[in-house]
C-alpha cells in the first residue's frame, strides 16, 4: 500500500479529491460547530414579503430556501444524511453485490444458479417502484431509507460482477491456476478480484451520486428522510421546480453532490491505479 500512498501524493488531482472527501466528512461530523445557523430555523426575514426565497447575501451566504432557512447551514447539515446514504448504503450494496456476484460466477451449479435467479427476481422490479413500496411499508427514517437503497442497489453490481467473473473464469490464467491446485480463496483474491477492481470502483463512485439522488427522489415522493432533516438530494427536490426563479436552490446542492461524487471518484481512481494488476510493476 505504500506504493498507493505515494501515488496519491504525487497526483495532485487525487490529492485534491482526498482533501474534498475529508472536508465533506468533517462538515458532516462538525456540522453543529461550523454551520452559521440552526438548519431548521425559519427566519422571519428569510423570505420576501411575497414569500419568495432570498438570493445569496451577506446574511445568508448561499441564500435561503422556501421556508426562509439558511441554505448554507442546511447544506452543511445535509452532508450527514447524504453521506450516510451515499457511502454507507451504497458501500453495503457494493460489498454484498460483489461478493454474491463473484460466488455465483465461480461456483456455478446450484449455488450460482440460485443466486442469479434471485438477482433476476430482484432486478425484475423497477428500482424506484420497489423502493417506494418498501419505504411506504417501513416507517420512514434515515436508516430505513439507507436500508431500502442498499436492498435495491446491490443487484445491478452483482450482475455485472457475475458477468465479468464468468468471463474471467474461462480465461487461461484462471484455468492454469486451477490446474496448479490453487485454492478457491487464493483464486478469488489473487486472480479474480484484482480484475474486477475497475468495475467495482466505477460502480461504487457512480453509486454515490445515484444513491444520493435516489434518496432525494424518495424524499420528494414523501417516503424519504422526514422533514425538517436536510439532505442534499432533498434540498434539490424541494426547490427543483423553482430553478427558473430561484436557481440557487438547485445550483448549490447540485454542486455539492457533484463535487463530493467527483472527489470520491478521484480517490477511487487513485486506488485503482495502486491496485490494478495490469499496472503493477510497470511504473
Amino acid at each position, binding site marked *: 500500500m505504500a506504493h498507493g500512498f505515494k501515488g496519491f501524493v504525487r497526483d495532485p488531482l487525487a490529492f485534491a479529491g482526498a482533501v474534498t472527501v475529508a472536508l465533506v466528512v468533517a462538515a458532516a461530523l462538525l456540522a453543529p460547530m461550523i454551520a452559521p445557523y440552526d438548519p431548521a430555523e425559519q427566519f422571519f426575514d428569510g423570505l420576501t414579503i411575497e414569500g419568495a426565497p432570498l438570493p445569496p447575501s451577506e446574511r445568508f451566504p448561499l441564500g435561503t430556501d422556501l421556508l426562509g432557512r439558511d441554505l448554507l447551514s442546511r447544506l452543511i447539515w445535509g452532508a450527514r444524511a447524504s453521506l450516510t446514504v451515499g457511502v454507507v448504503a451504497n458501500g453495503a450494496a457494493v460489498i454484498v453485490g460483489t461478493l454474491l456476484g463473484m460466488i455465483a460466477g465461480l461456483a456455478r451449479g446450484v449455488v450460482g444458479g440460485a443466486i442469479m435467479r434471485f438477482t433476476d427476481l430482484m432486478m425484475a422490479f*423497477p428500482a424506484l417502484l420497489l423502493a417506494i413500496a418498501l419505504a411506504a411499508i417501513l416507517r420512514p427514517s434515515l436508516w430505513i431509507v439507507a436500508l431500502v437503497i442498499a436492498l435495491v442497489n446491490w443487484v445491478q453490481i452483482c450482475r455485472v460482477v457475475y458477468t465479468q467473473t464468468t468471463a474471467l473464469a474461462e480465461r487461461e490464467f484462471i484455468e492454469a491456476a486451477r490446474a496448479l491446485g490453487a485454492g478457491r480463496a487464493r483464486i478469488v483474491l489473487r486472480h479474480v478480484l484484482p480484475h474486477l477492481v475497475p468495475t467495482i470502483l466505477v460502480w461504487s463512485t457512480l453509486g454515490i451520486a445515484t444513491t444520493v439522488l435516489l434518496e432525494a427522489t424518495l424524499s420528494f415522493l414523501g417516503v424519504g428522510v422526514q422533514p425538517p432533516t436536510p439532505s442534499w438530494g432533498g434540498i434539490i427536490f424541494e426547490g427543483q421546480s423553482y430553478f427558473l426563479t430561484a436557481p440557487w436552490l438547485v445550483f448549490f446542492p447540485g454542486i455539492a453532490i*457533484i463535487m463530493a461524487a467527483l472527489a470520491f471518484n478521484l480517490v477511487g481512481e487513485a486506488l485503482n491505479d495502486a491496485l490494478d494488476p495490469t499496472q503493477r510493476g510497470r511504473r
Partner: protein
Amino acid sequence: MIRFLARRLAQAVVILLGVTVVTFALAFLIPADPARMIAGRAATVETVASIRHQLGLDQPIPVQYARYLGRLAQGDLGRSYAQKTEVVELIGSRLPATLLLLAGAIFCELAIGLPAGIFAATRRGRFADRAVMTLSFVGVSAPQFVVGLLLLYVFAYLLGLFPLSGYGGLEHLVLPALTLGLAGGGFYSRMTRASMVGVLGQDYIRTARAKGVAETGVVLRHGLRNAILPIVAMIGIDIGLFMSGAVVVESVFGWPGIGQLAWQAIQRVDIPIMMGVTLTAATAIVLGNVIADLATALIDPRIRLN
C-alpha cells in the same frame, strides 16, 4: 442455443411468477385501504365495507392472490380502482410511447457513452480524459427533472427548436430521449472507459500493437470487442433504471407513457395498475436480461451457454 433460450425463457416465467407474489405482498403491506380511496370522503362505513366486499378485498390474501393469478392466466390484469378502466387497456395505450422513449434513450446513451468512453480510455490520464469523465459525472449526478426542464426551457421555449410538449413525431422525442440519454450516457461512458482501460492493458493488445496493427484498429477491433461485455450486461439493467427515470421525464415532457401511469397509481393506491405496471416492467427487464446473456455469448464464444 435453442435449448439455452428455452431454458432461459422458462426461468423468465418462474421469475415473473415470483414478481407477482412479491408485488402482491408489498401492495397489501402498504398501510392504506383501496376501498376507502374509492369510496371517497363522503362515504359511510357501510359503503366502504360493501366496496371492499365487491372487490374481494375481504377475502384472505392467498385467496385473492389465487384469483388474481387465475385472471392473469386469461390475460386479465383487472380494472383500475381509480380510473375504472381495464388495466390491459390503460397499459396497452401507453406502452408504445414508453417503448419509443426507451429506444430513443438507449440510442442517446450509447451514442454519447460509447464514443466518450473509448475516447477517454485512449487518452487515459490526460486532460481530455479528465474532462470527459468530469462531464459524465455531471450527467449522472444532475437531477433529471432539472435537466429536462432546462433543456425544455432553452431549446423549446427560448429557441423554439422543439415543441414544448406532446407526443407524435421525432421532434417530440429528441428532448426527453436526450434527458434520459445524458444520465445514461454518463454511466455508459464510465463503464466503457473502465472496461477499455482494463482491456487495452492486456498482453494480446500489446501483441497486436507490436505486430503493427493501426491504433484505431487495435482500439475498435481488439479493445472494444472485449470491453463490450460489461456494457452489454448493463443494457438489461438499464431497462430497470430507465423505468425510474421515465416516471420523471415523462411527466416533464407530457409523454403519455407507463411512467406517468405508474406515478398516478402509486398516489392513489391503485393496486391493479401498480401490479400491471410492475409486471410489464418486469417482463421487459427479464427479456432484456435474456437478450443480454445471449449477446454476451455471441460476442464472447468462450462463455459456455449453460
